């Protein structure tokens, strides 16, 4: 087992008082916290800092740690508990309640005195309930509309014989109708197992809508880019356009402009709060190449129509 130098981790002297320890912890916690640091790779450092603070803020744990440090630390970072060493609460090194986020060193000596102890009734890590797990669930728009079921595979961290193992689990989940990107759904009790008679953690699925080749999503509305030829935009047209449940006919009014939105009621996504629409956004597209006849016709049009779209520039 590797010895953890909690004083070094927090960058404080062994004689530091609680105020100094707290100050050092706050500084490092803000620096490495995954939510505030802006970097996801600081999580391991953050856990180390929390672990160190968890021990050093508590006078009893700190006294035990100092004793372990004095007699058990070996050169090269190795560690053996002093012979016959026993914690002040009467339990010796290997205990049952462990914290998946902390080191083997912490779990062996300090793990089962967190929440609920007389020293920290409201704070400190949750040492009992199974760990909640989070994973992303990619969902196709067609599945959002149909509310289909999906099979998921994931790994659950489980402690057996003082070792962390990953157990593979499979579940069949019904995707609720009209879920949106980033929405969370909870599968109660499907996270990591709780210790002894404690509750299992939950599994949270974060919905990630798979980008659709045709549609973008904005709330419950779907957005479709609708390419039109210049003459369709000028003269108007009757077109069939795709929706998530087949094609519908759409009248393009004459003199339609690029960027104009045409609303098709009730063809968006649907959930308990309402029903969205499909918005077709016009994009005027000209033919990629022109022959001499087309060029002549464009020139005629330019002569006949004196329209200047850049009048605001002058």
């Amino acid at each position, binding site marked *: 087992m590797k010895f953890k130098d909690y004083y070094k981790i927090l960058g404080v002297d062994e004689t530091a008082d609680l105020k100094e320890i*707290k100050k050092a*912890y*706050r500084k490092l*916690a*803000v620096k490495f*916290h995954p*939510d*505030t640091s802006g970097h996801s790779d600081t999580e391991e450092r*953050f856990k180390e800092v*929390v672990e160190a603070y968890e021990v050093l803020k508590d006078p009893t744990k700190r006294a035990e740690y100092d004793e372990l440090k004095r007699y058990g630390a070996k050169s090269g970072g190795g560690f053996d508990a002093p012979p016959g060493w026993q914690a002040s609460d009467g339990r010796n090194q290997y205990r049952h309640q462990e914290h998946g986020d902390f080191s083997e060193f912490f779990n062996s000596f300090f793990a089962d005195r967190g*929440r609920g102890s007389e020293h920290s009734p*409201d*704070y*400190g890590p*949750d040492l*009992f*309930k199974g760990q909640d797990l989070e994973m992303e669930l990619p969902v196709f728009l067609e599945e959002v509309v149909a509310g289909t*079921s999906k099979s998921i595979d994931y790994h659950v961290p489980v402690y057996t014989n003082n070792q962390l193992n990953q157990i593979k689990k499979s*579940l*069949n*989940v*019904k995707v*609720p109708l009209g879920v949106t*990107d*980033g*929405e*969370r*759904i*909870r*599968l*109660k009790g*499907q996270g990591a197992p709780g210790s002894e008679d404690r*509750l299992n953690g*939950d599994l*949270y699925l974060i919905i990630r809508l798979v*980008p659709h080749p045709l549609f*973008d*999503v*904005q709330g419950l509305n779907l*957005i479709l*880019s609708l390419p039109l030829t210049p003459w369709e935009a000028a003269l108007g047209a009757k077109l069939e356009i795709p929706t998530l449940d087949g094609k519908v006919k759409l009248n393009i009014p004459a003199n339609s402009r690029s960027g104009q939105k045409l609303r098709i009621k009730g063809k968006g996504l649907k959930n308990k709060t309402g029903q969205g629409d499909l918005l077709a*956004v016009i*994009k005027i597209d000209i033919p990629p190449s022109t022959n001499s006849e087309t060029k002549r016709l464009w020139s005629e049009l330019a002569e006949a129509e004196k329209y200047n779209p850049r009048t605001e520039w002058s």
Partner: protein
Amino acid sequence: MVDVTLYIDIEELCENESINEEVIVEVVDYGIAVPQRGGIFSEWIFDLENAYWIKKAVKLNQQLLLDWAAISMVIDLMKDNEKLAQENEQLRSRLSRLL
């Protein structure tokens, strides 16, 4: 088939996450989370989005030792950031279709 839960009541939230009821009242008072069903405190239920922010607020309180006013501000900024990132992604996707 596993049941999907979309709401969580206050009792379960307190028990599962080892959060005191007073802490949840504090979080709601600061506008960090809003119960989906108001009225009597014991009948509060939260959607998972709000339950997520409650848990996040409690963690920030424990881990960064911040007071609730500071947490409220941090959470507001985190929500804004999340919303802007999502909008940005949507707009990027739409722009690529229009160009």
